[in-house]
């Protein structure tokens, strides 16, 4: 998997993470188990989980996922998220 920086967002460190196709379902199951069930928006065909200091948002296909950090988001928050996503820098 890889990630790409998203410009002009709520936080300068905003990325889209492109999951391996076979890992999408399992990844969202891990996100839901840790941060709660995804909220779905049928009008925009998107879903998101809301963590205390960031949101993970994607289309209903679940991939790629955009991680929208709040200013208070810590390196530990991101490290934990990366572990759930299976992302290594």
């Amino acid at each position, binding site marked *: 998997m890889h990630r790409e920086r998203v410009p*002009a*967002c709520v936080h300068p460190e905003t990325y889209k993470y492109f999951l391996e196709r076979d890992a999408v379902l399992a990844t969202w199951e891990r996100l839901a188990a840790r941060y709660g069930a995804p909220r779905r928006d049928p009008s*925009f*065909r*998107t879903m998101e989980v809301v963590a205390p200091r960031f949101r993970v948002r994607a289309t209903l296909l679940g991939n790629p996922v*955009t991680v929208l950090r709040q200013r208070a988001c810590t390196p530990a928050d991101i490290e934990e998220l990366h572990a759930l996503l299976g992302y290594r820098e």
Partner: protein
Amino acid sequence: MATGDDLEGRLAMQYEPATYRRRIAGHDVIIHCHHYNARLQRTLEGARGIDGKGLIASTAESVFADHLARAGRPEDDEATRLALAELLYARLGFGRIDLGRLAEGVVTASSSHFVEGWLAGLGQSERNVCTFTEGYLQAAVFAVLGAAVTVRETECMARGAACCSFVVERGERGSSPRIAPAPNRKQAGVPVPAERGGPFVRSANVDEQAIIDAVVGIPMVGDAAGLIPAFSVYLANMPADFYNQVCIGFVEAMRGLGREKAAMRLLVSDAEHCGMNTFRGIMHSPEWDGLIAPMVRDRADALIAIIAISNALGWGDWHITAHTPTSLALESRYGYEAVGFREYRGEASTPQCAMLTGVAAGVMELVYGEGTVEDRYGTFASHEESCVSCGAPACIFTVERVE
């Protein structure tokens, strides 16, 4: 004390499909994002020779004294008025303010659209950035206690504080006695146009109404932090009266220095950057990927989709009348700037729609330009040919690639 449901009901958004206007508690609100709000603030506060900071604060005070009065009820007790002032601020997307220590002359804010916007859009700040909130709080104190006060931010999250802190000062401001907020006085507005205008350029691929319905269907209200993170940007519902008053006031103050044209150019430039940055954020968002990207086959489709979104945000009731990769023409019949100018100043002698003029160029630079935002800036030039504020039936914008 009124219940939370009652207060939320008072602040429910009403949408008028004929003009794309959103109304909350009697005020038309326009949805802009942190890019525009931060840049506009920087322009006003950075202009030498005028009191841009005072203009923002006094305008926020005037507009929100009126807004809170309209949302209030004669039977509201003090606790209800306090709760209403906190709730309006949060629901509009400006953040969270805590008025619980108002009696001590202290207000705190745990989140702020203006702090997030400044840091995300413009980077670190060496000074406090919550000027708007100072004005809002002056209006809130007036609405709650009937007292005219001066509010000053003493600590700001933009400078690393844990929360923003404000002191409420009663009595004198400088050598002048503090007076009640200036009334938000307007003349009769421009009637809603009976004709739709056009003909407009459409695309068989892009379902503009589906886009508008989806955007209007999103509950654009502040989350637990009083912020609206949507389309990968921070949005806020700002009364059109605020934008109109600060922009008119800025141009008039600059006219006093012989710099009226420079003022208009600055406002257009802010909007041009907004057009690029806001929609660049939107075009990279999951919301775009989910609903809009499947409709977009080429760049013209993207442009039509962008204009549909801007209409749903309440910007202009504007539509494309002609379009090539190097040129664009748009017609707006009920833009908030033109209508607002007529309400505040009567008929204008020159076009007044700086925001739409700049955005028109910005979206062309985004869709047809290459490279970074700075690479693209200035590669298209826009002009407002005629304006509703001058008595024309529609505002007409033309955009050409700069050769």
